[in-house]
């Protein structure tokens, strides 16, 4: 049964692809909120498009996706967060950017607007910024509690954000995050941008997922314009995406162990990461493969010595990685740190729609790769565990490395000949596209509207971290402060992707 069958709506927008978008009024919006609070569907995204708000939903069994639109009369809409917590920060961000109010929202604080902009509601009815009010962290009551404020500047080579810990001795009683420090106004820069500029911006939303974001942006453009990407290009996109996944998983596995002071894993995994980046450089001319995926296809073909470099990479990883996994698994002092630390319960990830290794380590088996090419032609498993601890999130990455190696082999073995790019079709009328793309940390959503000239009118980019950051607050509760870096790195959420 389609999602929209349970939501009262007035027709669907014909220009919206590939999943339906329908306009709803109060009853349809309320029905959608009811479905969310019952767990019959999951929130994929909630964003502003003044004077409207859009909500993207996915069925609980991942069988259907839909977008519903609510036109805000008097600049307000019924709060989703009032009944469904995962919408909380999304609503706060909508108010900061658009000035659209969620009526009866449980939390009226700003989220991305930290009081430093010279303009209020930059994407809505702009106003002059008022005097910034001090941010009120959530109150805590109890004896013998102390606070540890961390950030925005953190001790390592890492993005900025603020963590307010409330502790009872060594134990964390509450963690409250405050993000938004690296908000760059990307969605406003997208307005009026060419597709070429938009692709560059999308790829710089979160640098560690530049391929995934560019892939998502390109897919949304292709859906909107009904451009068919040549087969060779879809396979090369898959190759780039898997190289990016490998590089990040190697980096993460090493870094998580390093946060438990097991530096040898960081050193050894760092070698594998470096080999992966060098293979990417050989194949596509850039270590991170920035600007390699463009609407219509890919920007560069696989270099002549690319295939050999990939076979060498696969051989090296297969030679070394199993030894590292064995080392991780057999070091009791390391297992003591990672097993049962930072647990997120299966009910929580299900309610929040947490994706990536965060979701899959706690029983939620969603992987967006099942939805798009070239993965429809490839065979891969999606590993799932249900312990939900740091150890489980490491093991999901280990298993995904194995799957990525197999995927790269399949891609190399079946790489079609032909063009690497098709020109983007011009529709000569407004069109909209939605894409969901599995970045290494989870599903990235891109929604956009192009005008009749093919310029971007509105582009929304939703990082996987929106449904993972809040779960870190749950995961660290009752753990010791010293385990925070371990938990945080096991999530490895994006600051820049989130703040956008």
């Amino acid at each position: 049964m389609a999602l929209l069958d349970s939501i009262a709506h007035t027709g669907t927008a014909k220009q919206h692809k590939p999943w339906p978008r329908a306009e709803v009024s109060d009853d349809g919006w309320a029905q959608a909120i009811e479905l969310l609070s019952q767990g019959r569907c999951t929130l994929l995204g909630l964003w502003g498009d003044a004077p409207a708000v859009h909500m993207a939903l996915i069925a609980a069994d991942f069988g259907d996706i839909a977008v519903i639109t609510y036109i805000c009369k008097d600049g307000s809409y019924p709060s989703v967060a009032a009944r469904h917590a995962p919408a909380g920060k999304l609503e706060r961000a909508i108010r900061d950017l658009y000035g659209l109010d969620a009526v009866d929202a449980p939390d009226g604080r700003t989220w991305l607007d930290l009081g430093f902009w010279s303009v209020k509601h930059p994407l809505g009815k702009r106003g002059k910024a008022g005097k910034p009010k001090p941010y009120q962290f959530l109150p805590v009551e109890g004896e013998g509690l102390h606070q540890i404020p961390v950030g925005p500047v953190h001790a390592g080579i890492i993005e900025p954000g603020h963590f307010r810990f409330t502790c009872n001795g060594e134990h964390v009683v509450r963690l409250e995050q405050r993000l938004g420090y690296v908000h760059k106004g990307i969605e406003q820069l997208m307005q009026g941008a060419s597709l070429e500029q938009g692709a560059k911006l999308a790829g710089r939303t979160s640098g560690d997922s530049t391929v995934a974001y560019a892939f998502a942006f390109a897919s949304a453009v292709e859906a909107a314009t009904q451009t068919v990407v040549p087969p060779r290009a879809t396979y090369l996109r898959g190759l780039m995406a898997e190289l990016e996944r490998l590089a990040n998983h190697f980096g993460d596995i090493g870094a998580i162990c390093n946060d438990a002071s097991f530096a040898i894993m960081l050193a050894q995994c760092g070698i594998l990461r470096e080999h992966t980046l060098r293979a990417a450089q050989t194949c596509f001319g850039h270590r991170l493969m920035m600007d390699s995926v463009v609407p219509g296809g890919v920007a560069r073909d696989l270099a002549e010595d690319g295939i050999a470099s990939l076979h060498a990479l696969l051989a090296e990883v297969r030679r070394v990685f199993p030894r590292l996994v064995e080392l991780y698994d057999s070091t009791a002092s390391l297992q003591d740190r990672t097993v049962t630390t930072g647990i997120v319960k299966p009910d929580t990830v299900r309610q929040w729609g947490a994706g990536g290794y965060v979701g899959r380590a706690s029983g939620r088996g969603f992987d967006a790769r099942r939805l798009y090419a070239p993965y429809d032609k490839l065979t891969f498993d999606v590993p799932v565990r249900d312990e939900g601890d740091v150890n489980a999130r490491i093991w999901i990455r280990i298993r995904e490395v194995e799957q990525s190696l197999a995927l790269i082999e399949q891609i190399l073995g079946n790489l079609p000949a032909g063009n690497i790019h098709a020109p983007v079709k011009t529709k000569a009328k407004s069109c909209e596209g939605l894409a969901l793309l599995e970045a290494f940390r989870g599903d990235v959503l891109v929604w956009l509207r192009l005008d009749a000239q093919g310029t971007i009118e509105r582009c929304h980019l939703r990082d996987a971290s929106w449904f993972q950051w809040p779960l870190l607050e749950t995961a660290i509760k009752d753990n010791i402060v010293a385990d925070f870096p371990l938990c945080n790195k096991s999530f490895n959420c994006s600051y820049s992707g989130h703040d956008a």
Partner: protein
Amino acid sequence: MRHSLLDSLHGPLTEPAPAPDAAGLAELAQSVNRIARVKLGRSLSIRQVDAGSCNGCELEIHALSNAFYDLERLGLRFVASPRHADVLMVTGPVTKNMREALQRTYNATPEPKWVIAVGACAADGGIFSRSYAVEGGVKDVVPVDLHIPGCPPNPRQLLAGLLALLQNAS
């Protein structure tokens, strides 16, 4: 078991250090007059600050510590506090939300200090420069001694820039 792992997986991977970047040397020569020079030897402590980057530059800065580039053998290391730093390595366009944090970090760094702006965005805000949320390049907020261009600069480019700084600092 660990001993045999270290022995058997790889031989030494460290690569020879690159030559100092000529353009970086020229830029440094001009900025040196502004700073009181103290004999530091050939060792520099670096504090990295992300003032708004996409995180791409951070990834390549991390790579400096891997077995191939091995930053510490060149007398360069990353420190946790600006109070322990000789050099601030700043990435990203400076977002309005990070302006104060960057300024406070700069002020907390004792003299003599140098600032390196890493990446295209750190130079002038890059692709984000026209945003309501962005202040501009790092030089719009704190004085900069050296720019290392790139999107992101790869570890060799980072090393060349750092070595140019070293040559002029000591």
